[in-house]
């Protein structure tokens, strides 16, 4: 398993509130983003976030899957009003929440792997 899968699995197994904390961190830093998350209940949003994040981490080596899913993700994000400058905000909230949940397991290698993967993901989404 990749270091991304290991850190994510450990985080989700150890902290039931990981998705909630992610959104709390994101909204604390950028309260204006709350307006984009009104179509689903927080519980559903949390599940969708954990599901999608896990699926992406599981399929990083599957180019066909990534192309198909990221295309859909990109289109839906545009329709929700997501703009390119928001992606780094989400990335920082994600790394911060992962670091807090992983504790000592959040090594320099883990952080580097997450940042690299996120960066290529955003590049793929924004085209």
């Amino acid at each position, binding site marked *: 398993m990749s270091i991304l899968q290991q850190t994510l699995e450990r985080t989700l197994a150890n902290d039931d509130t990981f998705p909630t904390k992610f959104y709390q961190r994101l909204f604390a830093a950028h309260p204006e983003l709350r307006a984009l998350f009104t179509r689903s209940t927080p*519980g559903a949003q949390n*599940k969708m976030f954990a*599901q999608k994040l*896990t699926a992406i981490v*599981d399929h990083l080596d599957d180019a066909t899957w990534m192309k198909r899913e990221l295309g859909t993700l990109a289109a839906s994000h545009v329709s929700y009003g997501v703009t390119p400058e928001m992606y780094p905000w989400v990335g920082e909230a994600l790394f911060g929440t992962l670091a807090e949940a992983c504790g000592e397991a959040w090594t320099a290698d883990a952080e580097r792997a997450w940042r690299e993967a996120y960066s290529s993901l955003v590049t793929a989404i924004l085209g």
Partner: protein
Amino acid sequence: MEPDEVIDAALPWERVRRSRAPRVPHLVLAWSLDEPERVGEVLPIPRPTAIGRGGPLADDPFPRGALHQLRPGRAIAGPPITSARIGRQQLVVEPRGEEAVHVRSIGPARVRVAGKVVTEAVARLGDVIEIHNAAVFLVTSRAPQPASTTSLDFPYGAADPFGMIGESELAWRVRDAVAFAAATSRHVLILGESGAGKELAARAVHGLSKRRERTLIARNAATMPDALIDAELFGNVRNYPNPGMAERPGLIGEADGSTLFLDEIGDLPEKSQVHLLRVLDDGGEYSRLGEAVARRSSVRLVAATNRPLETLKRDFLARFTHRITLPGLAERREDVPLLLAAILRRTARENPQIAARFFERRTGEIAEPRLAPDLVIRLLGHPFTHHVRELERLVWLAIGTADADYIGLTADVERELSESAESSTDTSELDRDTLAKALADNERSPTKTAKALGLKNRYVLIRLLKKHGLSATESDS
């Protein structure tokens, strides 16, 4: 070589009679945080099996198991599990005989077996395997299923066209029995406890029969006043038996060419059972009250009772060619999550306020309920006495007493479950000798014997007697 073996090889009916298909442990998905739409799907454990999120990995210790939509004669393997909180490699499950599995946790999520956090344990029939905040599996056992005789086709886990919900072996056995009975015009007796779905089964018999274009006539025999039963059943001419009475065709006349469903037939007095004998014969002959001429009705009677067969007169009982016994909910536990989901869906449809409070909303649409796994686990182990009706009541109690935005095991539901579980005796300890002695000690009275054994009612006793090849009546025992 044993002589029997020669017979086995030569005669197919002997082979069928003597062979027994081995049963295989299965895990039924009873709750899922991320994939609630897959509840009811089944993971067979015929051999050591790896369970985890996603497709197979090169270093899986055993071939990876898949959730299936499993029906008689049909097994459709579903996509890999996607639940985020289930490890890529989470469990190794190995069969231990036909009704147990050995569970080993190899993943990051905590695993409980029968309520205890474990790294490995044996889970037996009816035990629950819980992957923390991700999934709940019920251990069941199934035989390889023959092709179904029904041609019903409806989405997996959903209500069938007649409203019955369940994908268990027993649910499909009932559907097969209903379809078999429906294909004939013979009278049908449906047996089952209160809340087990007798009226649904009766309507299904009618709905699958050639008579379905005609309206089903349904009446509860217990609600007919004794003095008017015959008039209700057979009808009457004008002014008979009392002046001023209008002419009535009676239920038998109304149901001519169709089906008459008489619920609680066990409450019909013996005299009325005798009166029905003639019309239940092939000629279908009867007379309206006050009329000398004989009429004919090609009525098909579907009767239901929750009472022991002994309450019906033998010759009346003999008119029912088909008997369909409906299992209690505790006998088909794996259907509880599907029924629960259906009840909750209906509740949300009918009550927007409940939907707003207890259901997730996804992109504006009402989606799955926020349902706590502890409630599902407790319901899976509950000895239901009033079956679907009881489940429905417990769901409403959980909703009505919820103090948060999810449907879970409130103190009131816990109390209700504990009280009704206490009042239902564990019958597994009652062996044949104990039952036989209790019968002898109580003048072979089912009522007295049931009471002496602390059983809920006579019906439970009758079922136990049947299981052990005993009968309350002297001649049959």
